[in-house]
Every structure is written in C-alpha cells, then in structure tokens.
C-alpha cells in the first residue's frame, strides 16, 4: 500500500531504541556476503528507479503529439473531443471533480479517523481495543468495488434527501447550488470516498497513537494534565507524522480511486454549463479514463488520455512532496 505514496508511518517512527534509525552503514566491510547483498540491494534500487523513469518517459512521449495537436488549452478547457482531425481537449472538469471530491473525503475522513483512533487507544475499555482494531484493519482491506456497490444500493437513497435538504436551505451559496443531477454528485462521491478511506486513516493513526511511549504520557499526567490534555501534549505530537502519512496515503487512494467512482459518477453532457456546485456531476481523471478505455483506438486519442493520467500522477506527487516537507520540518522535534 505504501508504494502508492512512498510515505509510511514506519519511516517516521524512532528506531527500536528510540534513537534515529540508522542512516548509511560505515561498518560494512569488503566481505563476500556484504558485497553480494550490497550489490543486490543497489541493483534493485537502481532497477526500480530506472523502471519508474522509463514509464514516465514513455507516458510523456506518448502524450506530446496529442498535446501539440490540441486546439484547446489543456488545463483550462472543459471540452473533451480528442478524436478527429482537430483534437480539442482540456482537463479542467476532471481536475475540479477529482480535487473537490477528494477534499471533501479528507475533510471528513481525517478528523473522524483521528477521533476514532484516539477513542480506540485512549478511551475505549481495554477488552474492546483489540477486537475493534482488528475490525478496522479488516474494513481497510475491503475492495473498493464493495464500497461502490454499497454506495449505490444502500447509501444513495439515504443521501438523496440530505442533499435535497441542503440544496433547499443553502442553495444560495454557490457550492450548494442546484444543478439538477439525479445520479451521483461530487459531494456524494466525496462522502463515499470518505467512508472508503476512513478505515485507512483510522488503522494507521491507531497504530502510531498506540506506540506513544508511556513515559511521555506519564510525564504529562504527572504535571496535572487531564486525559484530553495528556493526549494533546503527548499523544498527538508523537502521532502527528504518522497521521500526516496516513492522510496522504488516504488522499492518494481518494485521488486515484477508479472503480467505486466510475460506478457512481454522473457524466456531464457536452457543453454543460459551468457551476461551482458540489451537487453537480462530473468525471474524475480516473473514472474518465476507465470509462473510455475502449476509445484508445488511435495514438492521438490515447495520447490525450495519457496526458490526463499524467496530470493525476503529478497531482499525487505534489501532494506527497508537501507532506514530506511538512514532516521533515518537524523532524528535529520528533526524535
């Protein structure tokens, strides 16, 4: 799972003795075993980097001809007509839908997930902690198609009146304006994604909170901290890098989620009016590409989809880099 983002909770935890994990080993000698293993490790590392680079180069090469022939602005256009003599395509709609739905998912999943993790590690009765943790881990492993099915069959009928109510009461606010969509909306997809990534955030946060050293917690309690103050002074700061990693992993999944979203989105007709409403339909990058796999008939069309995929790739990469920077900045204080 961690390959999705390259950030994992374990990266940020102190080593077994509480010190910095070993960086670079001066003790390695010229012995055969060391050389063999060192050589193998180096080879694997280089191989992985080479493969990733080659994939990126391949994608860029494929995308360039389509992009140069594009008669619309790739980033600001909402048209998607990559075929024909004069291909015209832009990713604005997918970018908006993807980012908006993922943002909604994060706004719900991160606070709720952290709260559940805190409950499971700090407040829940001891007998209940292990089984509940097991259950959360199990939920994190449920395939996304199941969330898609559940969303469509069980959750959508429940969601519909809620959305209607918000539209009625808060429709004057652009984000909640009526868009006349009968199927899945951006907001609905965001909520389903939130439910889907919630177990991931919870499971990973629970793990780091659980590892808060007893000495830190006792240090806070001995100063006269209440349970919540102890959590704020000892547990949350200790768990913060882990929670950020968990959120990034979850965001990575939400941004790229294909099956569940493809299942639920309402594609917009060509030339639909632009609206800021979260109750509008719209495709995400992943669902657009998945829905149109059959269209990869000529290089120019395929190139357009690959270019869209590249934007998603860059988006995920940027998000991860920001998370890395946030974690690094606090590093001196987290060891």
């Amino acid at each position, binding site marked *: 799972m961690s390959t999705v983002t390259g950030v994992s909770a374990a990266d940020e935890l102190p080593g077994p003795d509480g010190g910095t994990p070993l960086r670079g080993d001066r003790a390695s000698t010229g012995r055969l075993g060391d050389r063999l293993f060192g050589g193998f490790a180096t080879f694997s590392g280089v191989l992985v980097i080479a493969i990733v680079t080659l994939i990126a180069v391949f994608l860029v090469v494929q995308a360039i001809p389509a992009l140069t022939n594009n008669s619309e602005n790739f980033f600001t256009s909402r048209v998607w007509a990559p075929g024909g003599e004069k291909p015209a395509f832009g990713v604005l709609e997918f970018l908006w839908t993807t980012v908006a739905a993922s943002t909604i998912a994060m706004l719900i999943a991160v606070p709720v997930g952290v709260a559940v993790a805190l409950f499971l590690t700090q407040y829940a009765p001891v007998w209940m902690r292990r089984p509940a943790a097991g259950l959360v881990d199990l939920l994190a492993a449920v395939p996304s198609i199941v969330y898609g099915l559940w969303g469509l069959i069980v959750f959508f009928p429940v969601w519909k009146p809620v959305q209607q109510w918000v539209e009625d009461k808060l429709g004057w606010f652009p984000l909640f304006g009526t868009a006349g969509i009968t199927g899945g909306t951006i907001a609905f997809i965001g909520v389903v994604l939130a439910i889907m990534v919630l177990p991931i955030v919870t499971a990973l946060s629970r793990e780091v909170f659980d590892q808060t050293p007893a000495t*830190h*917690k006792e240090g806070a309690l001995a100063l*006269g*901290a209440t349970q919540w*103050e102890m959590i704020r002074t000892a547990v949350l700061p*200790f768990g913060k890098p882990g929670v950020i990693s968990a959120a990034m992993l979850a965001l990575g999944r939400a941004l790229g989620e294909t099956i569940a979203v493809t299942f639920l989105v309402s594609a917009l007709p060509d030339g639909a009016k632009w609206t800021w409403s979260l109750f509008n339909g719209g495709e995400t990058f992943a669902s657009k590409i998945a829905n149109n796999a059959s269209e990869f008939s000529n290089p120019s069309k395929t190139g357009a989809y690959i270019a869209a995929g590249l934007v998603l790739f860059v988006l995920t990469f940027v998000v991860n880099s920001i998370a890395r920077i946030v974690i690094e900045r606090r590093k001196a204080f987290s060891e």
Partner: protein
Amino acid sequence: MAKRIDVSDLNVYYGSFKAVEGVSMTVEPRSVTAFIGPSGCGKSTFLRTLNRMHEVIPGGRVEGKVMLDDQDLYAASMDPVTVRRTVGMVFQRPNPFPTMSIYDNVAAGLRLNGVKNKKTLDGIVESSLKGANLWNEVKDRLNKPGAGLSGGQQQRLCIARAIAVQPQVLLMDEPCSALDPISTLAIEDLINELKNDYTIVIVTHNMQQAARVSDRTAFFNLKATGEPGRLVEVDDTTRIFNNPSQQATEDYISGRFG
C-alpha cells in the same frame, strides 16, 4: 509552600495482587526523605500513590489514607488532576516532551494551568531553569528541542518542568540512575537547594546518595517473593545508617542482603 504528608495503613494493589501492605509514615515539610530497599519491594509503587499516579496503571488502587496537611488525597471529592498539580513527579528516565522546545517543556505545566501571558511565562521559565541549575547551559537555545540535551541536562529539564508549576511536594523515582557521577552530583546539589522550598521524597538504590541528600530514610523490604512489600522502619538518616533499630535494615545497609 511545602506540605506535610501523612500516610496511614496504606495497601496498594495491582488488580488482585497486593504490592504494598500496611505503610504508615509521616514526611515533614521542607525535608528530604529517601526510600531505600531491594528491587521489587514496592518503593515506586508506594511513591506513585502519593500523587495518585498509580491510578494510571490499569488495576492500580489503594486502601488506606494519605493526607497532605489537612487534605485527604483519596477523598471522593478529590480530583487526581488537582493532586498531581500539587504533588509533582520526576521519573527514573528523563522524559522531556520530544516534540517541544526547552522553553515549551518548562512552560507545559503552566499552559495546562491556563497561563498564557508571555511575560509571566518567560519569568517562570527562567526562574525554574535557574532553580534547576540549567539556565546557564540552555539560555541561548531555549527554542531548540529538549531531546537534544544530554541525559543529565534532560533530567534537570524535567525537574525544572516539575517545579515550574510550584508544587507543594516533589517526588523523584531514582532520578539519577541513568546519569553519570557528575550529573548525579549536580542533581544532588539541586535537591539540597530545593528542600528549602519543597517537601521532597526520593527513591534511590544508591546508599551513599541516600546518606548524602536525605534527612530521613525509609527502608522497605519484602518478606519473601510474592509477598507484599512493607515499610520496615523510617528514621533519621544518620540513625538508619549508623544504628538502625531493625536487624533487616542493618543487613541491607551493610550489604549482607539484596
């Protein structure tokens, strides 16, 4: 500021296991009392009952009475959080909050008490660090992480953190056992100064240390493994080390035991 501790007939349990039995003793204000005794006899356990930190451990509970001057620490109306703000604690391994700077570590307890004023905080942080004989070493790097200090400095930082909230009593559980002799001496000097303002109870395995820093010494022992620990005797330190009234104390002090 300092208060008297009065313990009568205290039993301490971990679940159904009775760890300490029948302790009665008085700790005078502005004095240093040392707890000595073999490993596992319940010194830490008993010490933690003096600020209700044993309740943090699942199953930890007491029977008996602990009075702080005229306050009953175990009265139904007594909040353990209030108790711990009055009775501070320093642990065996230095445990500064790793995500906080030196300044924030010392200010942590004050902030919990709702002190926000920067001037007030600055003043108390400085006086606490001075009180812990650490000011000169850290005054130029107050915003650096507390975890970057040496072990001895970290322990003094923890002492500064504990005294910043101006407790009545300071409990120390083997505060020097992870430190080198020089840092140990620094902390012993500090204890000598602190006793002018606080009631201090210190657990130690180091006989010389008990003899050097304490006014009174309490000797705890186990009858046998699996039995609860008991207080054998408590007396002036000079008496305990020169002329104890119990044979078991004499044996332990002279190294014939444990």
